[in-house]
């Protein structure tokens, strides 16, 4: 059998996306984002995102099929994000995927969004060339507006273990909140990255969450950004009360340094501790310039091979779900039934959801 032709649907947060792959070859990846609709609220509003998903799903499906130049009847399987994510958003994609599978008479795979962020690296190679297989194990560092996680991935089709996670905000949320504090627009990631370019990252020493000795005992590989966000708010407010200007570039650079420092330090520490020599980064914040640079430096020093899929594949997209689906098909795993539900808190150890 030739490599499976799989369509993947992703709708866990504010991106509605349909991707199509043949094995590890990317054929289409159509993404519609509702990000601008959330800007005035300073964060993703679940109901607004859900409405946008419903409007976007049909057009995204048509565009993906046209871009891949395939006929739906040629598909071997349909894959979809079953969780984790926003419930109202997930069910739109899941309903569409189930229907597609039912109409076409093809198997449905309800998959874990987080594992999709890892699998997507298999698509990051020149068209027509074979994919670089993922090292086993790989340490995955996922950083976005919705997640901040370290995963030990022995096998993307079934052996994924959480090594660390945020105990409060996701890194991307901290960016959004600090941006608002500084009067910068949503989403915070790109604007803080930009503002930080002209600033001094050592100007203000903001705290690195969960790095104190007592925290390292219990939360060595976990993250926390709530205290950092409050520290930035206090610093800015004190400055204003003192009648002084807020040096936006320095605050942005110092905040970004604190985030990048703690994320990369813990990721490299986890790799060393678990004896893992390969790391992959995913999620929207993977595009952050300081995080990228510092992670490259520190992994190199530690002798860890770093893989970073191109930014368009790091953000949420349907192709990452499609390629994970193709791996699952090739591994011969049982499909999910058409009766599965969405699971907003799907544990990372569950790669394929069952009834």
């Amino acid at each position, binding site marked *: 059998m030739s490599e499976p032709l799989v369509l993947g649907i992703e709708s866990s947060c504010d991106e509605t996306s349909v991707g199509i792959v043949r094995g590890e070859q990317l054929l289409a990846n159509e993404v519609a984002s509702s990000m601008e609709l959330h800007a005035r*609220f300073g964060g993703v*509003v679940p109901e607004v995102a859900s*409405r946008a998903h*419903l409007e976007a*799903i049909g057009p995204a499906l048509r565009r993906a099929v046209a871009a891949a130049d395939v006929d*739906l009847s040629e598909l071997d399987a349909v894959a979809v994000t079953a969780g984790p994510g926003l419930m109202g958003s997930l*069910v739109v994609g899941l*309903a569409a995927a189930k*229907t597609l599978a*039912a109409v076409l008479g093809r198997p449905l795979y309800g998959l874990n969004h987080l594992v999709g962020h890892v699998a997507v690296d298999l698509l990051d190679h020149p068209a027509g060339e074979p994919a670089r297989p993922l090292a086993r194990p790989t340490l995955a560092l996922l950083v976005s507006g919705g997640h901040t996680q370290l995963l030990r991935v022995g096998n993307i089709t079934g052996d994924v273990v959480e090594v660390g996670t945020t105990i409060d905000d996701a890194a991307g949320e901290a960016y959004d909140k600090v941006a608002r504090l500084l009067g910068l627009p949503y989403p915070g990631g790109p604007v803080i990255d930009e503002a930080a370019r002209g600033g001094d990252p050592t100007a203000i020493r903001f705290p690195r969450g969960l790095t104190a000795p007592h925290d390292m005992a219990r939360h060595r590989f976990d993250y926390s950004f709530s205290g950092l966000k409050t520290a930035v708010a206090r610093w800015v407010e004190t400055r204003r009360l003192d009648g002084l200007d807020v040096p936006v570039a320095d605050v942005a650079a110092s905040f970004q340094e604190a985030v990048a420092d703690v994320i990369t330090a813990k990721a490299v520490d986890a790799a060393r501790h678990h004896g893992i020599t390969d790391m992959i980064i995913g999620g929207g914040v993977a595009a952050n310039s300081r995080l990228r640079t510092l992670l490259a430096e520190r992994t190199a020093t530690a002798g860890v091979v770093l893989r970073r899929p191109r930014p368009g594949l790091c953000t949420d997209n349907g192709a990452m779900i499609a390629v994970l689906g193709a791996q699952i098909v090739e591994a011969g795993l049982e499909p999910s039934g058409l009766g599965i539900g969405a699971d907003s808190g799907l544990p990372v150890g569950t790669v394929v959801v069952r009834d």
Partner: protein
Amino acid sequence: MSAHPPTRPIGWTLAVDTSTVVTAGLARDGRTVASEQAGDNHSHVELLVPTIQAVLADAGIGWADLAAIGVGVGPGPFTGLRVGVATAVTAGIAAGVPVIGVCSLDAIAAQWAARGAPAEFIIASDARRRELYWAAYRDGRRVGQPRVSAPAVLPELPTAGPGVRVYPDLLAPRRPGDAPLGLDAGLLAAHLHELPDVGLEPLYLRTPDAAPPTARKSALTGRRHRLRPGTAQ
């Protein structure tokens, strides 16, 4: 509805509605063949496609045999509504079948009209938050747009629909004994081409619960400001 001479579409029509529970029905040449109902208000995405598959299998047909798909677009709880509409839209694309959106209240009104409704009546359904979704009908046709309001605001007219069970003290006395309490998707399939096409955007009738952030509370007092995003119903 009754104002137009009913057209007799040739072939199979599938109708689904998720404005309350999951319902799916089939009609052939304008006559109901099957009608199924499943679940509660919280398992639409789990149950809808399997229910449709069962209805099709029982009739001995497949998706490719359908000539039209009708979907109730509410009003109703948002998350459930979207399951029905996403399913209908995707089926339309995958099976190459036209999809028609109808107001779910109109579908119940047509059921009542078909067996002799009063000249004027109300169809109401649960909008939660101590409100009802409702629409008024005269001579079998809807008067104005569907609305959402407190039960006390409803005109004192004969009333049917799922809202009757939610406010029995107020509404049960207004319901004639044979008036429908729920939507029958088999009848919706049969009446589909007589009902107004309202498009495929759900009839939300409410804006999302979300407000732009207000002035931030001081971080120096230790109080935390949190944006409270709206939740789906």
